[in-house]
């Protein structure tokens, strides 16, 4: 009986070694020489294959870079330094790019999320969103189950008091968190200045309802619009929106933020 085990082991090992040898030989013989530029660029790319650039892998992205079909700025993950080196290899001049960061457009902490029902289902935002947002009265705000923090490949987000908090040092701007949020609470924005001011609310409910269900929501009172005067803010669908391209003077913005009755204008 022992014989069959030995012969099975030996013959399978033999076959495996034989095929491995054939493949190793073929690999040597049929090796395709990569364009040295492609491998140089691939080495500079982060190599995490996150796919945020829209290509299959870092290698695929490098091939398109070598063919000058895309801009290295598409890769949000790599460092400034590496980007410059890639521009050198491509022989092109660098364009102005800003790092991108996620803005969490909700400010309701645990105690401020008014419940409408008890949700005892699977504790993910995606699951909660399927059953009317996990029992929260506000249908626009952060449900607080942290899908964004879970999906972040760099550990840059963590949940704190029912809201995602950003560790800007770790964030690469890959936008995976924005894609994971079922309510689109997270927006990606170019970080043009040291500080960006944004309205930390996504609710399009009218003033009365927002007032009733959330103490941290934007009630679209229009104070920020009046104070800024030159279009720094505008009201759309019962919600104030910041125009990020016009944010130059941090002091003005700070004073406007201080006047906001619900203190919903936050800085990064």
């Amino acid at each position, binding site marked *: 009986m022992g014989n*069959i085990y030995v*012969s*099975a082991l030996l013959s399978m090992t033999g076959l495996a070694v034989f095929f491995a040898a*054939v*493949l190793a030989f073929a690999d040597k013989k049929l090796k395709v020489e990569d364009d040295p530029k492609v491998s140089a660029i691939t080495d500079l790319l982060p190599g995490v294959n996150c796919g945020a650039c829209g290509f299959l892998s870092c290698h695929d992205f490098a091939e398109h870079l070598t063919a000058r079909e895309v801009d290295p700025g598409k890769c949000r993950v790599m460092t400034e330094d590496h980007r410059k080196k890639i521009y050198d290899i491509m022989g092109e001049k660098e364009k102005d790019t800003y790092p991108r960061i996620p803005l969490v457009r909700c400010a309701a902490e645990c105690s401020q999320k008014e419940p409408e029902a008890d949700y005892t289902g699977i504790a993910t935002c995606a699951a909660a969103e399927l059953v009317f947002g996990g029992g929260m009265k506000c249908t626009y705000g952060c449900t607080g189950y942290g899908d964004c923090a879970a999906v972040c490949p760099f550990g840059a987000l963590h949940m704190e008091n029912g809201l995602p908090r950003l560790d800007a040092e770790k964030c690469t701007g890959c936008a995976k968190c924005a894609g994971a949020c079922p309510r689109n609470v997270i927006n990606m924005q170019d970080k043009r200045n040291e500080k960006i001011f944004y309205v930390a609310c996504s609710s399009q409910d009218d003033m009365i309802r927002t007032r009733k269900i959330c103490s941290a929501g934007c009630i679209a009172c229009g104070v920020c619009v009046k104070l800024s005067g030159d279009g720094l803010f505008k009201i759309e669908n019962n919600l104030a929106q910041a125009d990020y391209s016009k944010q130059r003077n941090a002091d003005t913005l700070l004073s406007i933020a201080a006047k906001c009755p619900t203190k919903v204008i936050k800085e990064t």
Partner: protein
Amino acid sequence: MIIEELILILIAAAITNNFILTYFLGICPFIGVSNKMESAVGLGLATTFVMTLAASVTWLVYQYVLVKFNLVFLQYVTFIIVIASLVQFVEMFIRKTSPQLYKALGIFLPLITTNCAILGLTLFMVLRKYSFLESVIFGLGAGIGFTLALVLMAGIREELEFADIPEALKGTGITLILAGMLALAFMGFGGIISG
């Protein structure tokens, strides 16, 4: 006499017992790669190559290793090892000789490994107790049949681009319906060859 038999095996594998349209094996690449004629022909030829090689190599391994050492129970594992190595080899070969085809086939090239039509082929071959030559012809026929089905489908799907398809059926839906119709058409060959 023997030639007659070989021709019969070839035609049976390619048409009357077509792997895709009669046995419904290998539907994944059939749906996945049949949207463009060029890649359909490419994958068809690659699969034919792998099938023919797989049939011959597995026959040798089966007869001279598995049967000899009384290890027939290992046939599934062994066949999969053989097929996987062959596919790896073909992948390297195509990458070297035709980068365009390599790009067009994309993920479906390594997926030939898990194409059940190929494992099916090797198992049928054992089941029907074919000789070496018969196995090779069987593999070639199956490959030709696979290519034929893929190319037919690609031709139809290219025309389909211009057709007015109900919204709900667009894409995979209409493709599966078409596959069913093609299979019905191929049933017509059923009575030609017995066995």
